[in-house]
C-alpha cells in the first residue's frame, strides 16, 4: 500500500491532474475575489454617497452661516451613530463641522481632490491616507447648492479597515466555498490515478516474478477495460511460458538422462573450450569431476592431450574429427575412440564442440583374438599336413625303403592324421557350442557317471606317465540338466590336461561335490602351474602358456576353450587358481537340476 505512493507513474499521472484542479481553483478564486472586492468598494462608495445626500439636507441651512457648535454637536452625534465620518465644508474650504475632529483645528479643505472633483462634477471620490484618523480612507464629497449657487460641501468618509474587513470575510467565504470541491477533486483524482497505477504495479510485479522463474504467479485483476485485457494477456503468456518451460525442462531431463545412461563418454565445450557438460562415463574415462570441471577450460581439468586437440581442431576446421587414443593402465591399454563434432548455434556459427569417447578396448581385443585365431588355426592345420606330405612324398620317392622305416613312416602318418582329426573334431565341438544351445541336447544326467567314466579312460595315460590319479564323488547322484557328450568333453579335457602338465610322480585329484545348489567339480594337479599374467588368457582358443611344450604333448590348444564354452552353455562358470610351479586347480560350477536333493558327500569311488 505504501509502495503505491512511491510509484512514479502515479505521480506523473496525478501531478497534471492536480495542477489543473489547483490552477482552476486559483483562477476562479482570484476572479471571484476581485469581483467581490470591487463590489465591496462600490457598495461602500454608494452608501457613503447616500449618507452624503442625507447629510446635505441636514447641513444645507448651516453652510453659509458662521460655525455653530450645536450643528457641530449634531454632526458628531450622527457620526457616532453610523460610524461614518462626516465633514461639512464651506464653499471657500473652511471646515464647518466634523464628526471626529474639532473643525476649528482643521486645514482649509478646498484643495482636497474629492472637493475639487465635487466642485467641478457634482461628485468627488478619493482614496488616500487621512492624517485625521491615521488610516487609509475613502472619501466621497458632494456640493451643497442653494438657488443654483455653490454654497458648501458635504463629505463622507470611511476608513479602509472596514473595507478590508469586509473584503477578508468575502475572501474567506469564497475560499471556503472552493476548498471543499478542490479537496474532493484531488482525492477523487488520487483514487483514479491509483486505480490505473495499482494494476500496473501488480502486473510489473507479476512480470518480474515470471522473469525470475516463478511461473505460478497469477494476476487477479477483474477489469473489463484495456488494463484488464493486458492482465489477462499477461496471465495467458505466463501460462504458456510455464508450459513451454515445462516441456523444455522435461526435454532437458530426458536428454540428461540419456547422456547419463550412455556407455560412451560425452564432453561438450563452448567456444572458449570451457566445459559445458561431461556425462558420468566421460568423467570416469577422463578422471574428472563434473562439479569442479564445469565452466573451466578443458585442458585445465584433464590431461589427455588428444581430447582437447580433437575438440579444438574440430572447431577450427569445422568438421567431424575421428581419432583414437590409448590410455595405458597398469593392466592393459584402454583404447578410446574420439569423435569430435563442432556445435553450431542458431545463426550457424560455431559455438563449441562435443566429443564422444567410445571405449573400443574390447573391440580391439576381439579383433586381435580373431586375427590370432585365424593365424593359429592355419598354423595348427598346416603343421600335421606338412608332416604327412613330407612322409608320403618320401614313401613315394623311396621305393627301396626297408620295412621298418616304412612301417614307422606309416605310423607317423597315422599319428599326424589322428592329430588333425582331433583338431577338427575339437573345432567342430567348439563351433557347435558357440552356435548356441541349439546344438546341445539337455537331459537330466548324473555327473558322477561322467567323472568316473572319464577317470577310468584316463587311468591308462596316468599310469603310463606315473601320475597318481584319484577321484572323489558323493554317495548320492549329482543330477544336472546337461548334454552328456559335452560334459564328457569337459571332464576329459580337464583331466587329460591335468595329467599332461603334471610331471611323473605328481598327483591329479578330481573332486566332485555339491555346494549351495550347484555342482562343483574341481580338478587339482601338482603340475607346472600357470603364471598369474597368463591366467586370464588360458581359456582363449589356441592360447598356450608354453607353445613348444604344449604341442609336443599333443594338445590342440582348444581343450580349455571347450571347457569354458561347455560350462557357459550350461549356465555355469569356470575359474582357475594357480601359482607357477605349484600346480593348478580348475573349478567348474554348474547349476543342479531343481528337485534333486543334494546329500552328504562320500569318499573315494
Amino acid at each position, binding site marked *: 500500500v505504501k509502495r503505491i505512493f512511491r510509484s512514479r507513474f502515479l505521480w506523473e499521472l496525478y501531478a497534471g491532474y492536480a495542477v489543473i484542479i489547483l490552477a482552476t481553483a486559483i483562477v476562479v478564486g482570484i476572479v471571484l475575489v476581485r469581483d467581490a472586492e470591487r463590489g465591496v468598494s462600490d457598495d461602500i462608495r454608494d452608501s457613503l454617497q447616500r449618507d452624503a445626500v442625507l447629510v446635505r439636507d441636514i447641513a444645507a441651512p448651516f453652510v453659509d452661516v458662521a460655525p455653530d457648535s450645536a450643528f457641530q454637536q449634531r454632526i458628531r452625534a450622527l457620526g457616532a451613530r453610523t460610524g461614518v465620518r462626516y465633514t461639512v465644508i464651506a464653499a471657500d474650504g473652511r471646515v464647518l463641522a466634523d464628526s471626529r475632529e474639532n473643525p476649528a483645528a482643521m486645514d482649509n479643505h478646498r484643495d482636497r481632490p474629492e472637493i475639487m472633483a465635487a466642485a467641478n462634477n457634482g461628485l468627488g471620490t478619493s482614496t488616500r491616507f487621512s492624517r485625521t484618523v491615521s488610516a487609509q480612507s475613502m472619501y466621497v464629497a458632494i456640493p451643497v447648492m442653494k438657488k443654483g449657487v455653490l454654497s458648501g460641501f458635504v463629505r463622507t468618509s470611511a476608513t479602509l479597515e472596514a473595507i478590508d474587513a469586509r473584503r477578508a470575510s468575502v475572501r474567506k467565504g469564497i475560499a471556503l466555498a472552493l476548498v471543499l470541491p478542490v479537496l474532493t477533486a484531488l482525492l477523487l483524482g488520487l483514487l483514479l490515478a491509483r486505480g490505473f497505477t495499482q494494476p500496473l504495479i501488480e502486473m510489473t510485479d507479476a512480470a518480474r516474478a515470471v522473469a525470475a522463474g516463478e511461473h505460478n504467479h497469477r494476476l487477479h485483476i477483474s477489469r473489463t477495460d484495456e488494463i484488464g485485457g493486458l492482465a489477462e494477456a499477461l496471465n495467458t503468456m505466463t501460462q504458456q511460458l510455464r508450459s513451454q518451460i515445462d516441456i523444455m525442462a522435461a526435454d532437458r531431463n530426458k536428454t540428461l538422462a540419456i547422456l547419463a545412461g550412455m556407455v560412451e563418454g560425452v564432453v561438450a565445450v563452448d567456444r572458449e*573450450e570451457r566445459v559445458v557438460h561431461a556425462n558420468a562415463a566421460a568423467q570416469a574415462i577422463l578422471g574428472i569431476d563434473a562439479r569442479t570441471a564445469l565452466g573451466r*577450460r578443458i*585442458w*585445465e581439468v*584433464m*590431461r*589427455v*592431450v588428444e581430447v*582437447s586437440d580433437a575438440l579444438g581442431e574440430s572447431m577450427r576446421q569445422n568438421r567431424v574429427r575421428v581419432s583414437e587414443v*590409448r590410455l*595405458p*593402465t*597398469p593392466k*592393459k*591399454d584402454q583404447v578410446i575412440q574420439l569423435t569430435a563434432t563442432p556445435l553450431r548455434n542458431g545463426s550457424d556459427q560455431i559455438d563449441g564442440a562435443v566429443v564422444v569417447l567410445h571405449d573400443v578396448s574390447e573391440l580391439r581385443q576381439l579383433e586381435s583374438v580373431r586375427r590370432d585365431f585365424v593365424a593359429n588355426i592355419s598354423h595348427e592345420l598346416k603343421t600335421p599336413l606338412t608332416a604327412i606330405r613330407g612322409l608320403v612324398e618320401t614313401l613315394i620317392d623311396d621305393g627301396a625303403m626297408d620295412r621298418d622305416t616304412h612301417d614307422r613312416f606309416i605310423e607317423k602318418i597315422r599319428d599326424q592324421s589322428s592329430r588333425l582329426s582331433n583338431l577338427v573334431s575339437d573345432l567342430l565341438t567348439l563351433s557347435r557350442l558357440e552356435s548356441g544351445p541349439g546344438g546341445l541336447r539337455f537331459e537330466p544326467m548324473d555327473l558322477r557317471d561322467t567323472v568316473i567314466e572319464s577317470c577310468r579312460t584316463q587311468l591308462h595315460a596316468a599310469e603310463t606317465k606315473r601320475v597318481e590319479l584319484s577321484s572323489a564323488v558323493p554317495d548320492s547322484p549329482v543330477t544336472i540338466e546337461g548334454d552328456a557328450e559335452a560334459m564328457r568333453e569337459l571332464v576329459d579335457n580337464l583331466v587329460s590336461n591335468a595329467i599332461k602338465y603334471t610331471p611323473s610322480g605328481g598327483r591329479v585329484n578330481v573332486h566332485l561335490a555339491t555346494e549351495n545348489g550347484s555342482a562343483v567339480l574341481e580338478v587339482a594337479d601338482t603340475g607346472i602351474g600357470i603364471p598369474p599374467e597368463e591366467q586370464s588368457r588360458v581359456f582363449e582358443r589356441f592360447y598356450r602358456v608354453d607353445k613348444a611344450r604344449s604341442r609336443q604333448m599333443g594338445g590342440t590348444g582348444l581343450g580349455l576353450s571347450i571347457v569354458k564354452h561347455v560350462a557357459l552353455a550350461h549356465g555355469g562358470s569356470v575359474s582357475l587358481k594357480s601359482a607357477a610351479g605349484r600346480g593348478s586347480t580348475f573349478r567348474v560350477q554348474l547349476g543342479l537340476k531343481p528337485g534333486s536333493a543334494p546329500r552328504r558327500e562320500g569318499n573315494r569311488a
Partner: protein
Amino acid sequence: MTKHLQIDLDELSKELLTMGAMVEEATNRAINALVRRDRSLASEVIAVDDAVNDHENRIEDHALKMLALHQPVAADLRYIITVLKVNNDLERIGDHAVAIAERALVLSRLEPVPLPEDFDKLVTVVQRMLKDSLTALIERDAGMARAVCEMDDEVDRVHRLMYAAMQDVMRNDINSIEPAVNTISATRHLERIGDLATNIAEDIVFMVEGEILRHNY
C-alpha cells in the same frame, strides 16, 4: 592488465598444460611399458619425444615474445618466468620418460627379474608427484606444491631401497645382472623425474607466494 596480455597468458597456459599432459602421458606410458614389458608402448613414448621437444621450443619462443612485447610486471612477470622454468623441467622429464622407455625395450628382450614391491611404490609416488605438481600449477595452489616437495623424501628413500634390492638379485644370480642393471637405470630415471617434479613444485610456490624455495627441500 591489457586484454592482449590476458589472451596471450591464457594461450601460454594452454600450451604449457598441453606440454604437461604430453609429458605426464609419456611418463605413464613409459612406466607401463616397463611393467608390462610392452614394446609397442615403449616405441610410442620414444616416437612422441620430438613433438615434446618442438612444444618446448614453441613455449619458450612464445614466453620470450611476451616478455619483450608486454614487459609485464609483478604477478604476470613471475608467471611467465615460472612457465619458462617449468617448461624446461617438463622437457627434461620427457627425456627421462624416453630413457625409461628405452630401458623397457631392452628389458623386454631379457629374462624378467622380479621387481621389488618398492618399485610399485616408487612408481605410484612419482606419478602422483608429477600429477600433483601440474594440478598445483593449474590451481596455483602453493599448499599442494609444498606437499609435492615433501613427497620427494619418500622417493629418495625408496630409491635407495631399490638399489639394495637389485644388488641382492645380482648377487644371487649371475644371469640377472643385465636386466637388474637396466632396472636400476630405469629406477634412477624415475627418481630424477621425482626431482624435476619437486623443481616444478618449488617454481609454483615462487609464482604464488613470490618466495624462493629452491634447495630447501
